[in-house]
């Protein structure tokens, strides 16, 4: 939930990232509050993935000041990695490991003890209604289960922030909503959620939304205020007004 008085969990100031002469991130500045669901939108190629990689400590910015979860992006990258979770459609679970092996693997990487891992795995499979799938290969389970499991392992170490890069593509509308129920719950527990999506109705689930156009943040506010400011009935209209100006 967004609380303007909550502490800042992500602070980005004048983030610039260049690849040769191409400016992928052009002086981005924004803050994310603890526990909020922050939507990070933009057209394909607007520079979202570049920024997320930097925030996750996987790539250095060209310039700018960044603090993630209380840690400096230049000096404390390893600490950042321990305090965040990450999930994307492309990279999440290992197809040739079972459901339980995936949980054990991720929990192990984050340094959880064997006993804790057993416990969390049991709770998790109960909660996801996947007890029968414990020893099934990831390859053989439905996409919706994979997504819910991938999200659960991304937060298995109780991170301060979880980054979700287009997490919900391709699933049916009920499964998509069950997934968002999990996001709401994580946020309720105090985990900050940083999410990108092409589904504009999902943008409305966010506490605040930023829209990137050409490497810059073109707008940042609550969905309610954005709709008001752009005299739009939906976030889809807001997005089209902002992003359509510059296409191709």
């Amino acid at each position: 939930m967004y609380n303007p008085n909550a502490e800042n969990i992500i602070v980005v100031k004048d983030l610039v990232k260049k690849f040769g002469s191409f400016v992928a991130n052009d002086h981005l500045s924004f803050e994310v509050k603890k526990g909020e669901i922050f939507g990070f939108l933009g057209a394909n190629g607007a520079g979202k993935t570049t920024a997320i990689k930097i925030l996750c400590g996987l790539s250095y910015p060209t310039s700018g000041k960044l603090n993630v979860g209380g840690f400096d992006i230049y000096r404390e990258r390893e600490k950042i990695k321990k305090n965040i979770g990450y999930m994307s459609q492309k990279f999440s679970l290992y197809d040739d490991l079972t459901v339980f092996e995936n949980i054990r693997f991720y929990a192990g990487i984050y340094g959880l003890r064997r006993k804790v891992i057993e416990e969390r795995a049991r709770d998790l499979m109960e909660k996801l209604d996947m007890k029968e799938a414990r020893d099934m290969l990831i390859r053989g389970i439905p996409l919706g289960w994979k997504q819910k499991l991938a999200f659960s392992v991304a937060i298995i170490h109780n991170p301060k922030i979880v980054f979700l890069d287009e997490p919900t593509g391709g699933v049916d509308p009920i499964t998509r909503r069950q997934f968002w129920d999990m996001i709401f719950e994580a946020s309720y527990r105090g985990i900050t959620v940083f999410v990108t999506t092409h589904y504009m109705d999902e943008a409305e689930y966010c506490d605040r939304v930023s829209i990137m156009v050409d490497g810059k943040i073109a707008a940042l506010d609550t969905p309610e205020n954005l709709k008001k400011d752009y005299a739009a009935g939906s976030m889809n209209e807001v997005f089209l007004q902002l992003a359509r100006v510059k296409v191709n």
Partner: protein
Amino acid sequence: MSSVIVEHIYKHFGKVKAIDDISFAVERGELFGFIGPDGAGKTTLFRILTTLLVPDKGMAVVNGLDVVKDYRKIRQDIGYMPGRFSLYTDLSVEENLNFYATVFGTTVAENYDLIRDIYVQIEPFKKRKAGKLSGGMKQKLALSCALIHKPSVLILDEPTTGVDAVSRLEFWEMLKRLKQSGITIIVATPYMDEAGLCDRVALIQAGKIMAVSPPSEVIKTYPWQLFSVKADDIFSLLNDLRQFPGSHTVYAFGQAAHISFREGDVNEAMIREYMHDKGNKELQVSPIQANIEDCFMELMIKT
């Protein structure tokens, strides 16, 4: 006249029933949508229509030609854009287009009229290798290649998946123009909001068609009383509504939740009072008409 007729087709892979008794017909010049999630059977169905797969049982006819017996002739008549980008990544934009024209025994010049609107947008990059194009440009090139032999039926498998909202809108504008030139278009999409742009839609899930109608008709079939409810915090809003006595379904829709009742004697005041007592603030409650997504989810529960 129907340009595609499908009657009672089945297709299974091992134990999975990918297509489980599907029948429908598409009229000439119609823009017909298949709306459904991954794994619903859309791609298998399209591969049967494009003669790339043979059904276990049943009959499918395209322009009066049987998909099994007359597969060679059908291939001349249809354009197909598969879900995965399938052009030659190491050929340039214009090389790809020329290649597809040649394979179909025609030239780019002969049918340029049909693709002009789309192709001019990527023409500045015609020397660029297809693998180096952005997502939106790849999509435009793939559509140009699928059209270059002037097919009478165009089959598009999730052309807008993973594409941003702007490119999606532009793509549908292109489809509308193509439809005006008389081409029959069959398109699959997981985006419920694209349903409204089709003449008719088939809602598909688990290998079965749940409903086929114009989008405006689909929403009239929704059987229950439906309300939209907003409050200051979506997490408590959803949880509290789920506890509401007699509620049938509760789903998030943007900043609101939709709650349905099978019995028809619930009113706004009752919901407002209940939610107020649970501590929800800034409440807004109103009765609403179901949208396509409400209908789709209701049909999913029923089947």
